[in-house]
């Protein structure tokens, strides 16, 4: 069965997936330390939806409950949704371009670059607040971009970017920057905890401005990559074959890298380094739906969003009032599920 023949089936499943995402968002909003009932949650959310809000009265609901739901929980859930989608889509496209199933979104040095930017700010520039906002996300973003630019240019030969060289360059720079961060930690013991907590990734400080920033960067980028998912398929045939089929291989790689770097830099600067999502989600989707990127990309976005929202919710409710960094949850819960999928796939092959 080709993609065309299965298209209407995929469309139906996608719609169900979107609906599922909506349900997950509402359910996740209900979980938390504060005491808010499901009914109150639904009422508060509805009061923010145009038209419906005319029929909703928030009488009897504490003002603090409204604040908690709208300013604390909802932003972080929406942020988790977009971060999950972004990381999964970038993971999928990198796996396609590098033809390497182990490629993850942080392979080009983005994570260590962002972490270094954040570390430098935490150690030296703590006092500076720009428009009431901390400098840390800005410097993380800048660090990420500069590092990727560096990695890319080390590997570049004229207009071509050999994929293996790029991978190695990314790995090398990752090691270098991580060492520098460790060095800085050795001389600034007081900052160690802060640095480590930042790197572990969390949505605990998610604000609406973070949500908007990520929305503006992620949604167009994911749409762009979806449109080029057919090209991504053809890249899997090998660069020569792709070229013979009319793909401008070098240009395509460049676009994908630039867009992906932008997305991952934005993600890392806002929520730290959340690993494993970019690996586990694309592969899980492929195990269910096959390798066609026209299917894998949109479903990875959906799957990543749902997965990360669930992980974030778990991070909040396992050991209240403490929060477990979400990067730990993605690994602890993601790995067994992934192994289960591997096991099923193995059985099928036999």
């Amino acid at each position, binding site marked *: 069965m080709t993609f065309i023949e299965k298209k209407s089936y995929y469309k139906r499943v996608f719609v169900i997936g979107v609906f599922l995402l909506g349900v997950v968002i509402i359910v996740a909003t209900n979980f*938390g*330390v*504060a*005491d808010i009932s499901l009914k109150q949650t639904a009422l508060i959310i509805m009061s923010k939806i145009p038209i419906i809000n005319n029929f909703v009265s928030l009488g009897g609901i*504490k003002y*603090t*409950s409204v*604040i*908690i739901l709208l*300013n*604390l*929980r909802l*932003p972080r859930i929406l942020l988790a949704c977009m971060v999950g989608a972004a990381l999964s889509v970038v993971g999928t496209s990198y796996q396609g371009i590098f033809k390497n199933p182990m490629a993850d979104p942080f392979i080009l040095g983005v994570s260590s670059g962002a972490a270094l930017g954040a570390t430098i700010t935490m150690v030296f520039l*703590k*006092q500076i*607040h720009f428009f*009431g*906002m*901390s400098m840390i996300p800005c410097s993380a973003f800048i660090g990420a971009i500069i590092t990727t630019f560096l990695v890319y240019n080390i590997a570049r030969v004229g207009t071509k970017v050999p994929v293996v060289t790029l991978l190695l360059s990314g790995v090398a720079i990752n090691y270098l920057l991580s060492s520098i961060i460790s060095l800085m930690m050795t001389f600034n*013991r007081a900052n160690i*905890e*802060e640095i480590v*907590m*930042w790197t572990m990734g*969390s949505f*605990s*400080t*998610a*604000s609406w401005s973070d949500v908007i920033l990520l929305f503006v960067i992620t949604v167009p980028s994911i749409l762009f990559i979806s449109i080029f998912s057919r090209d991504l398929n053809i890249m899997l045939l090998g660069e020569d074959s792709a070229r013979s089929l009319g793909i401008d291989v070098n240009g395509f790689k460049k676009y994908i890298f630039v867009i992906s770097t932008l997305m991952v830099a934005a993600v890392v600067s806002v929520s*730290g380094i959340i690993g494993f999502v970019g690996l586990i989600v694309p592969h899980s989707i492929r195990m269910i739906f096959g390798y066609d990127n026209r299917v894998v990309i949109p479903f990875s976005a959906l799957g990543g969003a749902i997965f990360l929202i669930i992980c974030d919710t778990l991070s909040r409710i396992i050991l*209240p*009032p*403490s*929060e477990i960094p979400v990067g730990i949850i993605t690994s602890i819960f993601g790995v067994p599920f992934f192994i289960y999928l591997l096991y099923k796939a193995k059985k099928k092959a036999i």
Partner: protein
Amino acid sequence: MIKRKSIISIFLAIIVCFVFSACGNKPATNKDINTTKKETNLVVYPLKIVDSNKRTVIIEKEPKRIITIAPNITEGIYALGKGSTLVGRSNYDDYPNEALKVPTVGDLLEPSIEKIVELKPDLVITSALFNKDAIKKLENLNIKVLVLSDKENFNGVYDTISKLGQVVNASEKAQSVITNMKKKVSDITKKVASAKKPTVYYVAGFGKSGDFTAGKDTFIGDMIEVAGGKNAANDVIGWKYSLEKLVEKNPDVLICSKLYASKKGIEGAIGYKDLKAVKGGKLLEIDENIIVRQGPRLADGLEAIAKLVHPELFK
């Protein structure tokens, strides 16, 4: 005749000498020396003292070269008027100003053994978190280490100051410092006795690293209550809190540290910025050193908290 007289006088002289020397030695044979009696003002050496690590330390004579590795101990030495004996301090001992002139020897966790040895101290005084390996190393180099630490409350501080007073031969001054602190505490307690208690939340940490406050069983939580406030976080023990709970509680007053631009950070932080205390100008700064250091300024710390909680009583 003359010979017998001289023999008797010599014999008498010798006996007198013995008696006198026996008297002189008496305190030395009495091993139960005042390690707990607070009323004795005369410190006699050698002093045998049991420190908070349950080690017995014998101080032969009044120490003239002291290294203190803990902010509260350093402050204590100066409060007792013995600042001139300090030859070394930790990096974090920054009060009073005179202390800044004293050379540094590292910190509690990573003291520089070499530096300490170089300064030839008679005694090193530190507090509970001091690196245990460092103690062993210093003792092997024949340097005496005394660890002074106690329960985190006012009584503990009084005990520490008292012990410190004995060690440095300033017991009288120690008693006066303690008396002044006690008076301050009781004055404050009386003042706020009948006032309405606002809910107070102490911001020990916020942001990505997590939300921390002074729980029910912490000393700061205690001081908030003594200062006439109601600790908003008295539903937890320890230091970890939850942002959602904080927003739910919506306390009247928030106290944060003066340092690290905390106030600015809190004003912009998710959750915090919606609190009525932050919006209504009741996010108040305090010098956290005077409430965290178990030293002579602790009563001042209590006063500072009380002034923030009940500004109307301290005009």
